[in-house]
Structure formats: C-alpha cells, structure tokens
C-alpha cells in the first residue's frame, strides 16, 4: 500500500511538472517573450532597456536553464508580477483563492447531493416516473452547454423574475451564512454543479442497477431480507465505487466549468482572471492559473486513487 501511494504521488508531481513545462514551452515557442511586455521601438524604449529586460527574463540562457529558473522561482512561491498593474501574482491569488474554492465546494456538494440520491432512486424505482424524471435531468445536464445554461438562468431568475442576483459575489460583508451573501452563490453553483450532478446520476444509476442484479443481492433477497436493508446495506456501498472513480473525470469538466461560469457571472475568482489574462496578454497570471488548476487536479486525482485503493483492494495488486 505504501508503495502504491508513493508511486501515485510521483505521478501527480510529474503531471504538474508536465503542465508547467507545456505552458512554459508554449510561451517561449511564441517567439520573443519580451514582445508581451513591450513593443520594440515603442515610446521610451531604448536598446539598453530591451537588453536589460532580456537579461531579467533570462533570455540569454538556453531553454532548459530558463525553464529550471522558472521552476525554481515557482517553488519558492515567486509567481512573478502581473503585467497589467505590476502586482505580485501570489497576492492576487491569495485574494481570489477562497472565492473560487468556495464556489467549487458548494457546487460539488450540490452535485453529489442531487446526483447520487437521484441515481439510486432512479435505479431502485426503475421504469417509474421517478426514473424518467431523473433520466431527463441527467440528459439535460449532460447536453446543455454550461455557458448557455448560465445565460438562460440569468435571463429567467435575475432579469425576468428578479429573485436572485445575476453576477459578482456581492460585497460579502457580515456573516457568510447570511442570505445576502449566499444568494450570489445560487446561480453560479447550480450552473457549475448540474453537469457533474448528471454525471454522478448516470454512473450511480448504472452501478446500482448492476449491483442489484448481482448474485449476492439475489441471495439476500431470497433469504427474505427486507427491501430497504438490501438496498442500503448490501447494494449501496458497492454501487458507490464507480461514482468515486469518475471524480477526476468530473474534475476536468469542473475546471472547464469554473472558467466559463466565472467569466459569465463576473465572479471574482481564479478562472475569470485566467480568461482576463488572455485578453490582456498577461502571461505570468496565465501560467500561474494553469499551474493552480493542474495542482488542484493532481491532488484530486491522487486522493481518488488512494480512496479507490482503500475501498477496492484489487486495485493495489494490479
């Protein structure tokens, strides 16, 4: 087991390093990175300043040295300064981190809270109205583009009905549990969570159907065990394994979703500054955002693997 965890940990680190390498490589492939900072021959740009900038960025050194320098700086927590207003990127991230993470957590709670129970309900009451309702939700959740859903929700609940605020995170003063703060979370977390909920629903449903059809459940039924006990004690636990394994896959769509959702709802978070950075050609912010999401993903992936190995011992030995 220790060996397994260690190996998984190494893979997680390699993933993160690969992500940084890719982004760094892309940034250098694009030509002279100084062009992102200043145009040659622009106002007040002398030849010396141009050279000095090159030296500061380490352009006189070979590519791998530049990359290692970048990696070293990143490890020390120096993510550089934003090009737009010369703030340290790390400060910006500290400021916005909680806003993105809280949105992610609320959406995830919503997704599991809706998806897994509905998936079980849909499997247990197969072929009834409940099953059809659940499957319709799953279908809509999978097929609706996040950005489109967000716009429609804003149109209905913010513009026409006026029930909920349509963007930003509000002032966020007072206690976090007050409705004036939480109401800002409703639409974004629904938008973000519904796709994942649909994923959970589908996978829980098919897992539950498979388990309910298995021999040991049939045996339990034949022994005369009551329906509730069969479902909750015998079937439920095993049916939870597949939903657990798709966590990394959902995380991928979650990260994409965060980026899209935040930029639609003007949410002050890391996904939105990533998109903004693209508009501003702000490379330090962009690389830092990619790094952040790669790390989050690697952590989730790692934890899933370990949780999976604890639940299902067969994994460890394969």
């Amino acid at each position, binding site marked *: 087991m220790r060996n397994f965890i260690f190996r998984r940990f190494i893979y997680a680190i390699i993933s993160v390093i690969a992500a940084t390498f890719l982004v760094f490589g892309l940034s250098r492939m694009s030509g002279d990175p100084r062009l992102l900072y200043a145009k040659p021959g622009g106002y007040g740009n002398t030849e010396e300043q141009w050279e000095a900038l090159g030296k500061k960025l380490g352009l006189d050194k070979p590519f791998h040295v530049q990359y290692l320098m970048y990696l070293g700086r990143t490890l020390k927590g120096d993510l550089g300064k934003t090009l737009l207003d010369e703030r340290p990127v790390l400060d910006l991230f500290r400021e916005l981190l909680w806003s993105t993470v809280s949105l992610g957590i609320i959406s995830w709670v919503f997704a599991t809270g809706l998806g897994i129970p509905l998936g079980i309900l849909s499997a247990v009451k197969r072929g009834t109205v409940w099953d059809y309702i659940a499957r319709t939700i799953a279908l809509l959740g999978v097929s*609706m583009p996040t*950005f489109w859903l967000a716009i429609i929700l804003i149109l209905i609940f913010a513009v026409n009905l006026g029930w909920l605020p349509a963007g930003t995170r509000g002032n966020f003063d007072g206690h976090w549990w007050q409705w004036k703060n939480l109401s800002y979370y409703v639409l974004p977390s629904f938008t973000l969570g519904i796709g994942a909920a649909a994923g959970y629903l589908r996978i829980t449903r098919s897992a539950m159907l498979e388990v309910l059809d298995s021999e040991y459940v049939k045996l339990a039924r034949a022994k005369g065990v009551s329906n509730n006990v069969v479902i909750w004690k015998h079937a439920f636990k095993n049916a939870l394994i597949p939903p657990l394994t798709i966590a990394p896959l959902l995380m991928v769509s979650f990260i994409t979703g965060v980026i899209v959702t935040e930029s*639609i709802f003007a949410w002050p978070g890391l996904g939105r500054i990533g*998109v903004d950075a693209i508009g501003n050609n702000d490379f330090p912010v962009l690389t830092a955002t990619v790094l952040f999401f790669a790390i989050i993903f690697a952590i989730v992936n790692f934890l899933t693997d370990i949780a999976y190995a604890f639940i299902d011992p067969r994994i460890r030995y394969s």
Partner: protein
Amino acid sequence: MKNISSILKILKLPLFYLSEIWRLLRRYPIISVVLIILLFFTGIFADLISPHDPIKQNLRSRNAPGYLWDKQWYAENPKAPKYLLGGDHMGRDVLSRTIHGARLSLITGGTALVTGITIGTTLALIAGYFGGHVDEIILRFLDVWYALPFLLIAMVAVIIFGSSFALVVILLALVAWSATVRNVRAEVLTLRERDYVLYSRIAGASNFRIIMTHIFPGVINTVVVIASLRVGSLILSEASLSFLGAGIPSPTPAWGLMISEGRAYVDSAWWSTVVPGVSIMLLIISLSFFGDWLRDRLDPRLTQLD
C-alpha cells in the same frame, strides 16, 4: 387523445399503430438519427438552404424579432428582410447563421474526432500488443495528459498561434485521443492471447500484419462506440472554446460564438442566444441517444463509460 384518434381515423389507421410507433421509438433511436441526418444535410447544403447570407449585416434588422412570432414588426418595417428566427446584434440572420454553424460544428467535431480516435487507437494497439515498457510509457503519458487543464492550455495556444480553424481542430484532437486508449488497450490485451493470433505468429506473420488483420478488426466495435459517445463532448468543447473567444475567428458563424455575441442582448433579443443554444442541445442529445443505442448493440460491456 381525441385529436390523435381523429387524425388516425382520417388516415384510416387503427389506434394500435400508435403504440406500435411508440414501441419502435423506444427501441430504436429514430428521432435522434433523423435529427442527426437533418443537421448533417443542413450542414452539407448550408449554402443552398440558408435563406440569407450568414455574414451579411443589415442595419435595419439589428435585433429584429423573428418573422415567425412577430409579423407585426415586419409590417411596420417593410424594408427589413424577412428573418424567420430574427436578427442578431449586427442585423445578421440568426437562422442562416445557425445553419452554417451546424456545418462548422460537424466539420470541426468530425475532423477532430477522426484524427484523435486514429491516434488513440494506434497508441492503444501498440501499447496493448507490445506490452512491457512501451505499454507503461504510453499509460503514464496518458495519466499525465489527463491532468492538464485543457481549456486554459488551449486558450494559451490560441493567443500564441492566433485562432484558426486548423488550430481548433488540432486542440480538439488532442483531447479526443485520450478517450480511446484505455478501453481499446484492455480489449487488445485479451485478443492478443487468442489462439488465432498465436497461429498467425507461428505462420510467420509480422507484428504489423498481426495487428492490422487479426487484432484491429476485433476492436473496431469498441472504437466506434467510444467515438459515438465522445463526439458530443467534443462539439461542446468546441462551443466552449468559441464562446470564450478562443475558437474559430469571427465572423464565421459558430454556435458558441453566436451565443457569446448575443449574450449582451439576451433580455431584449433572446433569439440570438436561444436558437444556437437549442441547436447545440438537440445535437448533443441526439448524439448521446444514438451513442447509447450503439453501445448497447455493439459493446454492452462499456455501460460504465460516460
């Protein structure tokens, strides 16, 4: 019910047909296939079908309502061209743009899918057949690949190389390839141990020949099923990219771009976002029904796959 039975009477059909039709619809994805074929043909013949030029702007029809539901407006503005589903913020025909958007979605989605699946299947065949270090390297590479935040990297690439059709297809293909590898490889692992593969090796067949003529035909079902299940999410990714401004450059009518452009006017001109949005949804739902059906037919073991 009364209506339906009276229609049936006119058509001289017994009520029995209705349940028969319902049974067929439940068993086969007829509606989905019809929708997919319909979109396919509108895509191919976009130039012939679309009533107006999708890029031509008309100041009179800026955010004009659709002729279908607001004839009043067209009576008041007789000079505005008749846009069935309304005009967008630049006075372009939403219907024509949606039709051309179908072409674009299908071409990008299709090209990316074929490229990606080809790469993925080749790698899976190599990994599964040769095993050992090659297998290990490919699988580890796959693990790392999964962990990359695709959308951001795609956007970085778009800034650097400038947005173009080719770049979008390449980026989508880079997403698509990873989906096939694991399942196809597992399939190859079992096929490789079969007796007929052993015999052909004894007969002196080369590795290439064994893979192509003896193993590849055995995994085609899996590949087709995965491809059909993946194409929807690829089209969604393409739409997300163009929504964020990192897709195929304007004014080419892409669905994601149309939604993003219509977003600012959604409270006064809902049609320019709703029409392309519903189109995406219908396409994805149809593809997903069709993919599910195909999977149940060809490879029921992939039920766990989403």
